């Protein structure tokens, strides 16, 4: 087991290095750098000014060297200009040139400086991740139990009316991408002019004219039922169908197993068969699915955070990618690779631990 984990961690590091190098290469293509220079300097810069801006800051070195500097294996590039000002990779506002470290890369714990937020990447991204963590937590709280309940209810009587209607619901939810369900939710539930809000208001059931809020801007400081329901629901809905279908398949398979038949012949009540015999075995497969669902949720989070203007990780991704904020993008990709690979690892380990047949042999 130890060796297995060690090998997976090694694989993870290799993947992360390859992946960040690809991101690094793509963001450091000249047209992208030109855009960066123009957005940092001014938009009417001449080509020579762009070139000198970039070469002063070391952007025009070969990609592997720049990459090594970002990793912290090579000293950061710097230029002292004629007027005594120092520019370069390790320059930070408020830090005197003498105190500037020679190396500033990942290995030194320095994630770089965001050119858009004008703040260290680690600090900005940390805040964003906290916001997304909050969103993810509530998504999980809503999604996992409801998906499991739907799946178990559908799977325990395969082919029944309940099964068919619940399966249709889960197909419907997998067919609704976040940008569709989000738009429908906002139009019907968060509008002051259309949908449910005005009707309920007229009946005197709710105070405001809209049932929910269409943006989650205020949810970053203080999440309430009003401003956080729709984003959570939108992300949860898309993932829910898939988990429910997996749970249903696994439950249906367990219900046809020999030992369930034995229990039934012994005269155990249906309730006890489901609760005591079938359920635990049926939940092994959904566990791995839920874990592997995290990377998918990441996608949903990007869309939902953009749609509801909630400044989290996904919003940061879109913002950084749109403005070619190189070091922020690299950090974002490191985080997402980490999430993808760690969840894979957990799902593999969890599968082994939950399944006694594998654990004991």
């Amino acid at each position: 087991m130890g060796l297995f984990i060690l090998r997976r961690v090694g694989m993870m590091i290799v993947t992360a290095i390859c992946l960040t190098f690809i991101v690094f290469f793509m963001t450091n293509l000249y047209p992208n750098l030109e855009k960066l220079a123009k957005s940092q300097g001014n938009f009417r810069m001449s080509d020579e000014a762009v070139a000198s801006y970039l070469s002063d800051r070391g952007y025009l070195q070969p990609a592997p060297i720049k990459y090594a500097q970002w990793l912290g294996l090579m000293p950061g590039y710097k230029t002292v200009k004629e007027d005594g000002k120092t520019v370069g990779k390790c320059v930070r506002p408020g830090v005197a040139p003498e105190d500037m470290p020679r190396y500033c890369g990942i290995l030194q714990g320095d994630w770089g400086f965001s050119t858009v937020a004008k703040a260290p990447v680690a600090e900005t991204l940390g805040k964003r991740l906290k916001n997304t963590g909050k969103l993810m937590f509530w998504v999980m709280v809503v999604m996992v139990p409801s998906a499991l309940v739907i799946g178990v209810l559908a799977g325990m009587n395969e082919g029944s009316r309940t099964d068919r209607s619940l399966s249709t619901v889960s197909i419907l939810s997998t067919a609704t991408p976040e940008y569709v369900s989000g738009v429908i939710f906002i139009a019907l539930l968060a509008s002051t002019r259309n949908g449910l809000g005005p009707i309920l208001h007229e009946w005197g059931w709710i105070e405001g004219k809209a049932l929910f809020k269409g943006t989650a801007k205020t949810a970053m400081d203080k999440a309430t039922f009003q401003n956080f329901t729709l984003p959570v629901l939108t992300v949860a809905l898309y993932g829910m169908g898939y988990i429910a279908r997996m749970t249903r398949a696994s439950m249906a398979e367990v219900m046809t197993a020999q030992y369930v038949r034995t229990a039934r012949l012994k005269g155990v009540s249906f309730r006890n068969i489901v609760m005591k015999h079938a359920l635990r075995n049926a939940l092994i497969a959904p566990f791995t699915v839920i874990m592997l669902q995290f990377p998918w949720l990441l996608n949903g989070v990007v869309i939902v955070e953009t749609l509801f203007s909630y400044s989290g990780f996904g919003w940061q991704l879109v913002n950084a990618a749109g403005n070619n904020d190189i070091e922020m993008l690299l950090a974002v990709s490191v985080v997402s690779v980490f999430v993808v690979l760690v969840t894979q690892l957990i799902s593999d380990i969890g599968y082994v631990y939950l399944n006694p047949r594998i654990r004991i042999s």
Partner: protein
Amino acid sequence: MENLTWTGSLGSILDPVFQIVAVVFLLLVALQFVTSLVLAPASDKINSDGTITLDRGPSALIGMAVRYSFLALLAICLAYLILGMVLSSETTGIIGTVSAQFSPVWLALVVTFLLSIVYKRRLGLYGKLFDSMIGMIGFGLVMFWVYTALFVGLFDLIATQDPLSQLSGMKNKLPGTAVRGANPEECGSACYYLLGGDNLARDVFSRMVTGSVIVIVIAPFATLFAFMVGITLGLPAGYFGGRLDTGLSFLANLILAFPVILLFYLLVTPEIVATGIPNYMGMVLFVFPIIFVGVLLNSRYYTRPKLRNPLLAGVLIGMFWIYLSGISSAGSVIDVLPGTLDLFNIPGGILVVFVSVVFVNSPTVFRIVRGLAMDIQTRDYVAAAQTRGEGPWYIMLWEILPNARGPLIVDFCLRIGYTTILLGTLGFFGLGLPPESPDWGTTINDGRKLLSIYPHPALVPAFSLLSLVLGLNLLADGLREESLRD
């Protein structure tokens, strides 16, 4: 001119009936749910002499009432649509006029279903689809959009206005608004913005149906290409295993570890497109169908060189020509074919979107095919082929692949749906296609800014996309059920 209401003057008769039946149906469904907790379910008895005694207990009666009220509801909905095709716009309102616009699609659908149901026993897996209700509904939804795209794209029917033209005074107008200054004698259904106007005063309905062309053209083709790439690489990886498998799987996992949206941003932004990277990627990805078909034919006919040589030469030259026409276009980074030989030009935006969608989908297909190949190569018929002395490529393409077709066909349907979602995602972030493009993702993105005030410009494409993807998922479900039944 007067604006249209949703159901027109016909609505004054049909609407109250519809509401009553709908309420009755909902009440009955609720009653059925409640009583199912208390009463025993209806069970028909089969007697020893072969006759059936139907259960006439309360739950059976409720079940029957639910069924009939549902049928009545369907009949009224059909009445709205059919009367809409016959009567004039003023009497039938928006729903009727929209239905009338879609009449070629309805006709094509009815013909397709009639022919398929009549001949379903002779049509293999496709015919079996018509045994399952879910499959039929899914197929109907998918074919609705396919026919819509066909009639809009090829015959210029259905759409009432030009999808890009802006008419003055129609900005954010509600569904059914009459075009300003229109003369009712001349224009007919083009007098109205049937589903309203968007924030640039364009017709939402026409944009929606024109957008279906983009989706219906790109999504299946992109999925097909992804399957070509996935199959061509996945079969040898699963069959040979070893280093090749390790390397290819690593690459596939690498691409899968990317968040899709980051990948899109890295590939599709104008700056990257200017460097020509998507064109080069297209150059690589589009080779795979040629390799696939070449190996497929060669492995089958290599023992008969007289047939193989002309066949392979003809097919490969044809495909290579199409390939060159596809990748090269004047003014882009790859410009190898002189203009007279260039058969067609793919617009830059579409090519970029196409390439990135294929790129995102292929690793998943690769993993599925690899898994299937690993599973199937342990079968006896593969061993038999090996003892017969067949080459590895023959075994992969003519023994393993046909036997993996069931799961692959199901996944193909699901994947077209996923590709549709990806296309929408690209449009939603304003990547790839030009901003005035009528595809559904872009229109949703356009409409979401004023969503809480004018919801119709965003809701119409949103529901269209939803129905297409839902149809594909239901179709896949029906296919899976029917193929498992064998």
